[in-house]
């Protein structure tokens, strides 16, 4: 009664693959200029044009979190959260790349220059 594979599984897999690949590559086709947006608790606190960054620098958008910015990329460099998943995410350097430090409620999101549908306005 509990079969492993059925016809529906195959169709489902193909469907999911197509949708996901489309979702991943569609935004990248639109533009190359990268902008990093940093949210703290839902509010935009910083917008950085990553291509215009000359010298690498770090700053702290929120108490216990440090963000490092270089030309074309950005990352969490330090955090006081227990998991440190945000720091482990590494460099964000492509459009659509996003990472968050949930306990501190800080989100870094990289987007292409053409504004995308990911950001919600209140």
């Amino acid at each position, binding site marked *: 009664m*509990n*079969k*492993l*594979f*059925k*016809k*529906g*599984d195959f169709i*489902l*897999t193909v469907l*999911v*693959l197509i*949708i*996901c*690949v489309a*979702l*991943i590559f569609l935004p990248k086709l639109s533009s190359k200029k990268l902008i990093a*947006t940093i*949210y703290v*608790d*839902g*509010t935009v606190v910083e917008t950085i044009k990553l291509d215009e960054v000359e010298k690498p620098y770090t700053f702290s958008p929120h108490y216990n979190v440090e963000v490092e910015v270089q030309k074309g990329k950005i990352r969490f460099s330090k955090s006081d959260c*227990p*998991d440190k*998943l945000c720091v*482990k*995410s590494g460099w964000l350097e492509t459009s*659509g*790349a*996003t*990472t*968050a430090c*949930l*306990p501190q*409620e*800080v*989100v870094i*999101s990289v*987007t292409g220059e053409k504004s995308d549908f*990911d*950001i*919600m306005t209140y």
Partner: protein
Amino acid sequence: MKKKSSSKKIATLGILSAQALVLSVLESFIPALPYLPPGTKPGLSNIVTMFAAAEIGLPSALTITFIKSLFALITRGFTAFCMSLAGGVLSTLIMWALFRIKSRPFGLAGIGMLSAIGHNLGQVLMASVITSTTSIISVLPFLAIFSIITGFLTGTILKILLPVLNKIKNI
């Protein structure tokens, strides 16, 4: 169908929950994978939850899910608790609903895949709520592709382990 005494039910659930917990602890040693959010795991403990959703019932499956979340609360904190609960509940509900469709269009692999995607969806939504932004949703396509593989894996292992798990159920 024999009616099980409630202490036997509790014992069975206990064994299954313990299995789920051990699997999730073992998985926590897997390092972060590229292009995926760190903390992404194969979800082996869902083998147990899927079994419960299929063969025992929704309340039991949800209990196992809740125990996993409580474990996350104790070992990793409140944020982890919310994330585990969000992903787990959605995933379990999807599993149970799919098992209830009489025509069974999907096999174990497909159900594993859909519940894995459900798990990721629940967690991404919870992360959006916690951070009050929606941009984190952009990781979903990557997670979903990974879910195809992990869902298949979970379904396959469940298929292999069915006789063993049934023995536990019929104690």
